[in-house]
């Protein structure tokens, strides 16, 4: 087999932009020649996938493996990516599948919140510096209090900012269902925050 290895840097730049900003590239949409640059996708969205998995309940110590799994799936379906659509919700669906599988495994069920206190970020983002580690944990714990379906929608809409109709489409649920589920999720989340704060105060 004769080989011609075509270097893809030139093309990759344009496509990465398309991927990242989800703007259509009329002349050569990434989907047509399949040249979404996987490594750039990885670099641009590693943090997002990581956090999404965490928000969906993957434990800290399993985040590396799960993130790996997500990107392997992403890689396998790279050609499905529609550059005219935003990339994050697309990635979210992969993370959701991985997180759901993760939760199904019996060995993970026992102590999903056990190590939520040892979140190992490089450090809080500038805006977050005023907020204590404890408060970050609060979000994780409150999310853990949510039923998985509600949690999924909550993360997608409240944290990722995906519109309810778009989230409903992604999750394949009716829009009305999504609205009512979101209402319940918000109530659950607020209640959990209240509860956790009360407990915190009580512990002092």
């Amino acid at each position, binding site marked *: 087999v004769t080989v011609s290895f075509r270097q893809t840097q030139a093309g990759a730049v344009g496509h990465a932009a398309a991927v990242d900003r989800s703007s259509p590239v009329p002349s050569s949409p990434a989907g047509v020649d399949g040249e979404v640059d996987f490594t750039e996708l990885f670099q641009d969205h590693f943090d997002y996938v990581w956090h999404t998995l965490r928000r969906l309940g993957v434990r800290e110590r399993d985040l590396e493996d799960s993130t790996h799994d997500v990107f*392997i799936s992403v890689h396998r379906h790279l*050609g499905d990516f529609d550059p005219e659509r935003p990339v994050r919700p697309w990635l979210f*669906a992969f993370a959701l599948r991985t997180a759901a599988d993760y939760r199904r495994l019996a060995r993970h069920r026992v102590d999903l919140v056990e190590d939520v206190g040892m979140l190992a970020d490089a450090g809080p*983002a500038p*805006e977050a510096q005023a907020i204590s580690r404890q408060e970050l944990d609060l979000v994780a714990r409150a999310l853990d209090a949510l039923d998985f379906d509600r949690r999924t929608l909550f993360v997608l809409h409240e944290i990722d900012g995906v519109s309810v109709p778009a989230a409903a489409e992604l999750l394949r649920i009716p829009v009305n269902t999504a609205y009512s589920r979101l209402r319940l999720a918000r109530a659950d989340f607020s209640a959990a925050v209240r509860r956790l704060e009360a407990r915190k105060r009580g512990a002092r």
Partner: protein
Amino acid sequence: MKKDAKVAALLRVERVRSGPDGAARARVLAKVQKTLAIVPIPLSPAHLPAAPVPVAPPPAAPLPPVPMVHPLGAWVSGLGSAGKAVVLVASLAAVGAGAVVTRGGTSPPTAPRAEPPVVTTAAPQLTRRGLAARPLEVTPAPERPPVPMSPPRAPAPPAASRASPSSEAPSTASSATGGAAAHTETLAAERALLDGVRGSLRARDPAGALAGLDRYAATFPSGALAEEAEALRVESLAAAGRGDDARSLGARFRSAHPSSLLQPAVDDALRSIP
């Protein structure tokens, strides 16, 4: 309301959290690249150039991967994560080129894994890179998998085999490597394959799932994750409406793996059969 403000503040912070440290990122990237470098990419005719180039017959023995300096190699080693050049782009290009064909333009992991060989638009360069980098493994697009009621292979449970470097010979995928490392890589490849199967199932594409399982069985005849593959096959058969096949394999699964963690999933699948 005060509480809402509190929640809003928490969420605002959560939205802008920074990621894990660079080392974690580098480790994951290295692992992803490692996995992708050996995942057998099924080259159905759909992955070949549009022009009627005859498909090379599958070599009797798998070729070692063509050593290739990856354009991202420099960047990768800059991260200090990968010691060797990784054959990566080629495989993703092949996957991408193939999958594009079936894209419905809708939401995510819905890609049917078994593309019928009807492509005319895949980019030749991508395909060629795919061909070159990979041991050629032509699987006929398996739209209608044979009833593969392969006897249970009595594998060690995944957890156990993961822990011990077993002697199960990895077949094609890792012939170029050896030892425990090969085993780890093989396991990763197995996982990736089964992950794809699960994706197909989730995308309600049981034919794709079955095709993936056939690929799994062919590539890893004594794979460490065979038990999982069997469970997935039961689910796939049930989803494909092949209730009798599912039931009979399900029964076999139960006797071969009496204390399987996957039994609930198998039972669910069997119950779903009308």
